[in-house]
């Protein structure tokens, strides 16, 4: 049981890290990014390839994964500079899907649909599996904490204020002399760095990556995490990551108590319950469990 809870903690931590990244892009800058899983994949593949094929140290691989995620984010932001709202959403969704298709066809690089197995994990050879689990949880918690603190700083810095200004009205921000495109690109790059890092952490945790992991469903989970936690709030992002994992895994333990359901119906019901839970949260907490604060947490407006 402990192992399971620890593994869920790692998953929740990774979801939270991605939600923090999404919060910079979507919550603060108001850019709809439905290609999250693509940047997650860039991070995962970068670190997996560097460590398995070139024998690079795991820490270096992870940093490279994060950087690659950020660079990919900046590129996508530049390409989509003129797109907003639904159009941006569609293009980013397409970006993630074309990345997945590329990963499954460029066999020479990514090993195609066979995936890359045997990705090393930090201290994996010297620790027992449960110790490794715990150590990894500690690592993920520390990284999420750092990401959270950085994102908080960002949110209340002048940079964060500009992002919110762009989110609320791009033209007004431009009229006020803010280089809107540069801010958007930076917001994308920063958010995608977190996504790339989450991908690298995932790869070294499970030791296996394959294109099938990077399906749009994962993007929706993260979106769900931020929606239920509170868009625009970093605390909400972290909480949301936890909530989604609790929804996803908690439903496993509910369905066995409904004896007249067969396993197939129970499996369908699980997915239904996850959706229903989200709907309930959003019906009664339209701005998420922890709404975006109107004020700086310390320096209150008088």
């Amino acid at each position: 049981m402990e192992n399971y809870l620890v593994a869920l903690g790692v998953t929740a931590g990774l979801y939270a890290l991605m939600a923090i990244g999404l919060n910079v892009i979507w919550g603060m800058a108001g850019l709809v990014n439905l290609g999250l899983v693509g940047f997650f994949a860039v991070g995962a593949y970068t670190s997996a390839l560097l460590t398995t094929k070139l024998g690079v140290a795991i820490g270096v691989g992870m940093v490279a994964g994060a950087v690659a995620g950020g660079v990919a984010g900046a590129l996508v932001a530049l390409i989509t500079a003129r797109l907003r709202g639904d159009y941006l959403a569609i293009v980013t969704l397409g970006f993630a899907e074309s990345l997945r298709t590329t990963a499954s066809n460029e066999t020479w690089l990514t090993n195609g649909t066979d995936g890359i197995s045997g990705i090393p994990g930090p201290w994996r050879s010297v620790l027992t599996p449960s110790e490794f689990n715990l150590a990894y949880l500690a690592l993920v918690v520390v990284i999420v904490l750092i990401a959270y603190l950085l994102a908080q700083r960002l949110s209340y810095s002048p940079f964060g204020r500009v992002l919110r200004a762009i989110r609320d009205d791009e033209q007004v921000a431009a009229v006020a002399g803010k280089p809107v495109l540069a801010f958007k690109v930076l917001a994308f790059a920063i958010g995608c760095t977190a996504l790339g890092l989450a991908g690298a952490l995932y790869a070294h945790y499970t030791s296996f990556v394959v294109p099938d992991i990077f399906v749009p469903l994962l993007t929706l989970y993260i979106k769900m995490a931020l929606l239920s936690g509170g868009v625009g709030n970093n605390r909400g992002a972290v909480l949301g990551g936890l909530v989604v994992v609790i929804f996803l895994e908690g439903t496993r333990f509910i369905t066995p108590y409904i004896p007249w359901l067969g396993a197939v119906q129970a499996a369908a019901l699980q997915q239904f319950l996850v959706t229903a839970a989200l709907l309930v949260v959003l019906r009664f907490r339209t701005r998420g469990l922890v709404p975006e604060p109107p004020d700086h947490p310390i320096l209150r407006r008088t």
Partner: protein
Amino acid sequence: MSTAQFRLTRRSVLAGSAAALAAPYIARAQGVPLTLGILTPLTGAGGYDGPRMMKAIQAVAAQVNDAGGLLGRKITFVIEDDQTNPEAAVRAARKLVDVDKVPVIMGTWASAVTSAVAPVCWESKTFLTTTSGADTITKLPHQGYLIRTQPNNYLQGAKHAEFIASTGAKKVGLLSIQAPFAQPTQERVKDVLAKNGSSLTGGLIYEPNKTSYRSEVDQILRGSPDMVYLNGYTPDVSVLLRDLYRAGYDGPRFTQSYALTSKAVESLPKEVTEGTYTVQPSADIDSPAYANAAKLLGIKDPDSYETQAVDWMSLVALSIAKAKAATGTAIRDTVRSVSQGAGTKVYSAVDGLTILAKGGEVNYEGASGPCDFTDIGDIQDCKFRYLVVKNGALTFLKVV
């Protein structure tokens, strides 16, 4: 008020409710059921095969339970859905391994899912049985905690090519869906065709989920093949068959039986499927194990997945009974001593258990094949069952 009177304190309530919660557990302990894990695709791309494999596993277990159970205990299952998605499957496997502490997980289907779940299994010394065919799976460092009853691509590719050559086809076109088996099968088919006086005139890999494959079909027909091998799944093979017909190709076609099920044949126009060969790994047609499985499942022709599921549960039951221990390591260490060797040949779990109970040795001959495993968990050899579509229905051709 005397102090001896019972008082409802927080402490006594806590103690009482703890006792109440523990009571059923203590009561259960006398006949603790033996809990095994099933992890199959109940939703997603494998949603057609997963539930049927699950039912087959349960049917064998029910038979074993009726005959007195395993180690004096009743078999029960914890069933999780792998959603045909590696990420979800890993979470589900973790739950089975860490919460339910199952000694064995049966039923992964997609190769990507199996490759993702396998590390969780071998690290926690849990046995894994699968139908995934990708060659890479048994090459993982699984320390023996994995067997698959599906012949790997190398074996399948060779047998398919031999059959195709035996029909007299000289120029073969091969269309494969993008999957782990695509490239290895293409290479193997090409080699074996060449050895048998035939040749591969065109091979290409296509993307899943397209509504038309006309350009792929045109490309293959450019090599003017006299046999087209469609190596995909039902949704895309159905489209391919239609597009081949529309493109005016009327030669024979060849595909896996899971890609052209009897249901698919019914739903497609007769002229589209007529003369298509299908193949599936199989036991000997006169194998008693196949007949047993058909009777057990109440189906006339159980398919490859159902028979494999029957074999997993049978092998696991026999291994646990022989090892007298229900752990993943015990199953790993014993499975080959009940699946192969000099023991009495048995064709069902219950027959094998009877012999083991008397102290005998068994060699389980399965419904999907002889179930003899190599050191890395592949099956050593396997028969293949060929059907052909005649007058809009799949008819039996031969078992080779």
